């Protein structure tokens, strides 16, 4: 962990501004009328971007051993992606609802 490579406070402040801008962008997207799937897609991409900055810089993952990134992130994402198999069912739920 070469702490020399670690960015200075200036960089962090810059990233902080970027993250706030991303949140502002999310709000902007919310108030633009667009199809729901596009809206959800955009807002999730923005959230993941923001979280990426958080994990890589604020939580220093970029400056730790790459092994940490390559085990923790894929495994967590793998588990969450597997959980995605509930969506076909959720859509069916609406279709088969008794009181639709």
């Amino acid at each position, binding site marked *: *962990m070469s702490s020399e490579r670690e960015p200075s406070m200036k960089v962090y402040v810059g990233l902080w501004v970027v993250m706030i801008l991303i949140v502002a962008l999310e709000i902007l997207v*919310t108030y633009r009328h667009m199809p729901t799937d596009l809206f959800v897609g955009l*807002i999730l991409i923005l959230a993941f971007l*923001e979280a990426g900055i*958080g994990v890589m810089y604020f939580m220093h993952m970029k400056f730790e051993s790459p092994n940490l990134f390559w085990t923790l992130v894929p495994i967590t994402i793998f588990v969450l992606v597997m959980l995605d198999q509930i969506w076909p069912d959720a859509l069916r*739920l609406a279709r088969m609802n008794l009181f639709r």
Partner: protein
Amino acid sequence: MSESGAGAHAVIMEASPFGLQSKKLVIWLFIASDAITFGALLFGYSYLRLGSLDWSYPFEGSSILNGFIMTVILLTSSLTMLAAVMAAKRDNKGQCLRWIGFTILLGTIFAVLHLREWFHMFGEGWALYKNPLGGSPIFAAGFFGITGLHLLHVISGVIALSILAIRYNNGALDKTYVETTGLYWHFVDLVWMFVFPIVYLMNAAVR
């Protein structure tokens, strides 16, 4: 496993493949685990939302603004936490404690703002099981459930930071604890980055 081939008889102390201190590794693992916990909650909430036909979109502009302010506060607290960690790395105890103090303050403001919003909503007739707008009560249950668990994390983070400040000040904990507590605090921030769009923005009263 990497160096098992390189000299089967060389007696070496094989380092952790992550090159991390144990407690830092544990915090990372805990974060992964907690991410799944929040993930499962958000997935469950979204599952019910996708399957429901009478969803309500209750958040007016003022709530979104309030949420934005809370987000900025939490992001800022992450920044002050970073400053505290950097100060601790330089062994500048006084500065570190000051930054931790700022972080605690911001965390508390976040919690207060959050609770204020909650009570505002209770006043409008919202409850865990009740949606005064007549739509699916799952919105209320999901909102209070997810933000509640997040608030619990914030509050325990504030408590952890306070304990850290005291024990770091009197020398019972060394500077590495500042870093691990900081990781946890950033994670709390990270969760909010998903809670805000999924629970607030997707329910803004524009749709």
